[in-house]
């Protein structure tokens, strides 16, 4: 990927050795970005110096590098979409984009990329934007090091910070997105990487995947979002080293999986979410080496989930470890550490000698009658759970960890 980009830059530099640099500032030859773009030739660099520019919608229709010096302010005056990019190989860097217009019929964005490949959006600051960066039918884009601060109040009148639609081979790296509807939204996006981003305080999802395949998201922090992270109708997604934190509320999830196949969820940390992972029709997913700490439900795996493996995770201080609404189980639980495990390890191999059943009777009861959760932490419920633990009758017989770890997995 990187090599390819490099090669491409090399070729583009080689074929355009005569590229010019045009400066824009309040007392330069060009005082307006639009004029500068008009009189530039492909592969020129336009350097925008410090100042405030109010020019409505700016369309870029040739390959250009637009570079801001000391973060020049480009203001959409709460009416316009700021940049519309309709050409390949455009770079936007070091700009401060403010006040995108809000529309209920058009998805106005601070930067809207239409049918253009190799567009790089780097190190920009976006404030008060409806949609932040919006790629449509574009490939090989790079979104790196941007800070996007929205002011979303209601879901219907707000947009997504990073919105990708029908794209592939995209990279989203080191961005910080806050207070939008969705932090990062991907729909029909394949073979892309989402690395090291921070998405917090968004109204709906911190990260939202729809119909996207072969994507990796790694080392992201997803905190305090309305409903957490959702991965839906997708295949071959790899989720690694992410932190899902404090997605706390009556309809919140750390991670929502719906109609998703063949994913890997490895080395993530789920801390203080209402539901750590919620799975509905999730199939062939490998959940391993994750930390589940102080969640309401660590795992809520519905009966429609099959052939998933829950292996070598730590479950510590969760109100409920695992809940399911079915009396059958088609998933594998093996070698996890459960803090509520009370068994023994006579042969000292580090694994308990009796299996652990993570579904307590009470968590099973709640799925049948939701209002009974009001009896949580009552002595009666503790007795009930204990009795069920000794002789399981209601909870799924085969849902058990045959090799529960005695000590937390490092």
């Amino acid at each position: 990927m990187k090599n390819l980009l490099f090669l491409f830059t090399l070729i583009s530099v080689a074929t355009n050795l005569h590229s010019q640099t045009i400066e824009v500032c309040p007392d330069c030859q060009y005082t307006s970005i639009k004029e500068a773009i008009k009189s530039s030739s492909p592969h020129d660099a336009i350097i925008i110096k410090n100042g405030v520019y109010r020019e409505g919608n700016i369309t870029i229709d040739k390959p250009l590098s637009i570079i801001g010096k000391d973060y020049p302010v480009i203001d959409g005056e709460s009416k316009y979409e700021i940049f519309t990019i309709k050409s390949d190989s455009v770079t936007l860097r070091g700009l401060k984009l403010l006040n995108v217009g809000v529309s209920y019929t058009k998805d106005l964005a601070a930067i809207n990329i239409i049918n253009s490949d190799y567009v790089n959006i780097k190190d920009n600051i976006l404030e008060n934007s409806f949609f932040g960066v919006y790629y449509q039918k574009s490939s090989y884009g790079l979104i790196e090091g941007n800070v996007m601060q929205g002011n979303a109040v209601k879901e219907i009148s707000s947009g997504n910070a990073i919105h990708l639609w029908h794209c592939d081979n995209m990279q989203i790296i080191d961005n910080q997105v806050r207070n939008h509807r969705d932090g990062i939204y991907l729909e029909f996006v394949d073979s892309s990487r989402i690395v090291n981003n921070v998405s917090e305080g968004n109204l709906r999802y911190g990260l939202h995947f729809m119909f996207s395949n072969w994507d990796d998201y790694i080392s992201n922090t997803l905190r305090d979002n309305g409903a957490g992270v959702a991965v839906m109708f997708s295949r071959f997604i790899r989720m690694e080293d992410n932190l899902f934190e404090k997605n706390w509320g009556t309809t919140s999830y750390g991670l929502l999986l719906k109609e998703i196949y063949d994913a890997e969820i490895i080395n993530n940390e789920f801390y203080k979410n209402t539901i750590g992972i919620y799975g509905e029709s999730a199939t062939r997913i490998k959940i391993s080496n994750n930390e589940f700490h102080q969640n309401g439900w660590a795992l809520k795996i519905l009966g429609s989930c099959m052939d998933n493996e829950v292996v070598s995770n730590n479950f510590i201080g969760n109100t409920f470890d695992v809940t399911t609404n079915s009396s059958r189980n088609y998933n594998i639980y093996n070698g996890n550490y459960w803090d509520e495990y009370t068994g023994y390890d006579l042969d000292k191999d580090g694994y308990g000698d009796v299996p652990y059943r993570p579904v307590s009777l009470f968590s099973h009861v709640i799925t049948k009658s939701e209002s009974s959760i009001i009896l949580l932490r009552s002595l009666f419920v503790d007795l009930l759970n204990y009795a069920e633990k000794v002789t399981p009758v209601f909870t799924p017989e085969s849902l058990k960890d045959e090799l529960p770890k005695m000590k937390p997995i490092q």
Partner: protein
Amino acid sequence: MKRILKYSFFDMIRSRWSIFYFLFFLITASSLLYMSNDSSRALASLMNIVIILCPLIGTLFGVMYYYNSRDFIELLLAQPIKRRDIFLGEYFGLAFSIVISFIAGITIPFIFYGFGGADTLVNFLTIVVAGSILTMAFLAISFLVAMKNSNKIKGFGLAIIIWLFMAIIYDGLFLMSLFIFEDYPLETFSLAMTVINPIDLCRTLVMLQLDISALLGYTGAVFNKFFGTSQGIIISLFFALLWVAGPVWTISWQCKAKDF
């Protein structure tokens, strides 16, 4: 009444039992704080202990104390003192000393450790109030039971059955009725069921305080709404105090007819 209250209070506070009770809470609270190193988590664990132990200890102490001081009561009855004053004096002396042991036991560790924020302080106060009310209520109930039964075995048995009913069987019936009437809207019903039983009421109040409310979903929202209004707080406090005032009033009324 004041003098009898004083005697019974000092009698009780000097006794092994209240010192044991005090030490129990002191050690539990400080070890919870020491082990979890986080006052809000320690509070959550402490809540479980308070909800289970305060009613149980109240029940046992009430019966025990009454049977122990029977001779003293009979002696007092020979004096020109109102019957009501004797019995209520005995009860309040007992109740204050136990409540003070409880409050001192859980407050001292938190004072040394620090509350760590206004939220935790509110949660802590909720637990203190809940524990005190539960103790007072179950002391009064068991005191009344012991007064009505001169047979000690019967008295103990009945008091424990009442505790068993309130702490465990009630919730079982509650859960069963939730299942049987599944098809009906049950929010008001479960709210009423919760408010009526002091143990459930205290448990729910503390639970809502301790930020588990997000787990409770729709039911939790209904409860939060109820307990969030001043009307809800007044109603629940009224019912909680009714469990203290009711038995106490019955004691003062029944003692007149008490035959020795």
